[in-house]
């Protein structure tokens, strides 16, 4: 009986609902990248800085971000203001998610960038210095392009994981794709909505993979 229901399910009604959730997922995805990538660069720079206390703080931050579940971090950002700090109202759910995702992914990106920057041979910086490039010019003209090439595959991995991780936002009842699909599945007694949601994630990640492959190919003109 349930199976029959699954087959008869009205896709024209289901798709718009899921598309709406998907839009929220994409927003989480896009905003997270927008904030976490520059933040990751800052964190990697701080981690390589010469002042020990700053390095200790950054190390602790990276350890916590990578050592605890993201789902827990999302809950902490959402509940801590009211439960720990006696705030009057909890923060906006959506922005709590963005904050949690951004600081979490920044930690991962920071470690990837650090690896990429340290992979640039010392001679590159010395040549730049001898030729008279300023620190800014050296970073943007010499370091960054080479870092991008080395980190692109690892960044691709993280970005694909991020697409799937957006589903964790449901833990504080943000109506993203997975949350809506689950709701539809239970009201309609069908696994079809979940399956369709899976197709959404899959197709999107397929696109992401194609884009990163393209980027890697474009940067394969040297070395």
């Amino acid at each position, binding site marked *: 009986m349930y199976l029959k229901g699954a087959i008869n399910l009205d896709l024209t009604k289901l798709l718009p609902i899921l598309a709406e959730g998907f839009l929220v997922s994409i927003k989480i995805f896009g905003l997270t990248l927008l904030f976490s990538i520059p933040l990751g660069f800052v964190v990697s720079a701080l981690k390589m800085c010469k002042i020990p206390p700053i390095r200790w703080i950054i190390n602790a931050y990276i350890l916590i971000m990578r050592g605890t579940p993201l789902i827990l971090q999302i809950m902490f950002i959402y509940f801590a203001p009211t439960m720990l700090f006696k705030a009057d109202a909890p923060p906006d759910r959506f922005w709590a998610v963005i904050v949690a995702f951004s600081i979490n992914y920044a930690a991962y990106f920071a470690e990837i960038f650090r690896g990429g920057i340290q992979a640039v041979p010392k*001679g590159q910086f010395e*040549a730049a210095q*001898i*030729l*008279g490039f300023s620190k800014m010019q050296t970073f943007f*003209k010499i370091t960054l392009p080479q870092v991008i090439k080395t980190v692109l595959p690892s960044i691709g991995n993280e970005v694909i994981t991020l697409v799937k991780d957006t589903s964790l936002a449901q833990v504080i009842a943000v109506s993203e794709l997975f949350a809506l699909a689950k709701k539809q599945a239970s009201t309609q007694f069908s696994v079809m909505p979940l399956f369709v949601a899976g197709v959404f994630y899959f197709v999107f990640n397929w696109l992401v993979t194609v884009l990163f492959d393209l980027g890697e190919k474009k940067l394969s003109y*040297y*070395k």
Partner: protein
Amino acid sequence: MAMLEVRNLRKCYGDLEVISDISFDVNEGEVLSVIGPSGSGKSTMLRCINQLERITSGTVCVCGENMITGEKNGEAVYASADVLKKIRRNVGLVFQNFNLFPHFSVLRNITEAPVSVLKIPREKAEEKAMELLGKMGLADKAKSYPCELSGGQQQRVSIARALALSPQMLFFDEPTSALDPELTGEILAVIKELAAEKMTMVIVTHEMAFARDVSDRVIFMDGGVIVEEGAPSELFGNTKNERTKQFLKRYSENTFKEDK
């Protein structure tokens, strides 16, 4: 006129004194070769003069500009950033490992600094780069990337890159040491040509025959000091110094072994 005056140069890494009290001059249009065993401080000396390392004490004067203004608590005090920049523009350094920028084409490797540091218009910089590439016999490689070139070609590009900034003086740190033996000739030929044009140069090298041929003066360094300084005919021909003799003897033995 002395283009370069080094006085009482000392460089320590912590407690390790790598260069102790070195003084020498290089005159305009002169070619000075620096020879000596590995670890004797030759690279460190070049790196100190080119501001890649902080000197511990002593003075360095390039084209009349003092890099060091004094001493405080036993540490050299550097001149203002403006002066250091000016000095930087007067000198060029060619590295043992070329250090070309892998993501730039050959042409861009040469033009990037003139365009973004000296603010020369791109067309002008490219014109000059092509001229330099022609001189290096690499005019057809302008659009290639460093990874597509042989070591010798890469080193010629890096020489062109240094020359593109029209330095008053050029330093070479073992420019042929990373090259296969059959490729060293092309680099030495380029340096000889520069010498013929009266380019002021300081060349750290293990190519004794070349040093004898091209230099006006030779310095032999060992253990962070200048052991002997003189005309190539003196130093290579009939040195009285025991350490120099031993080094040159060991060197010719090694070269002989390699040849076999």
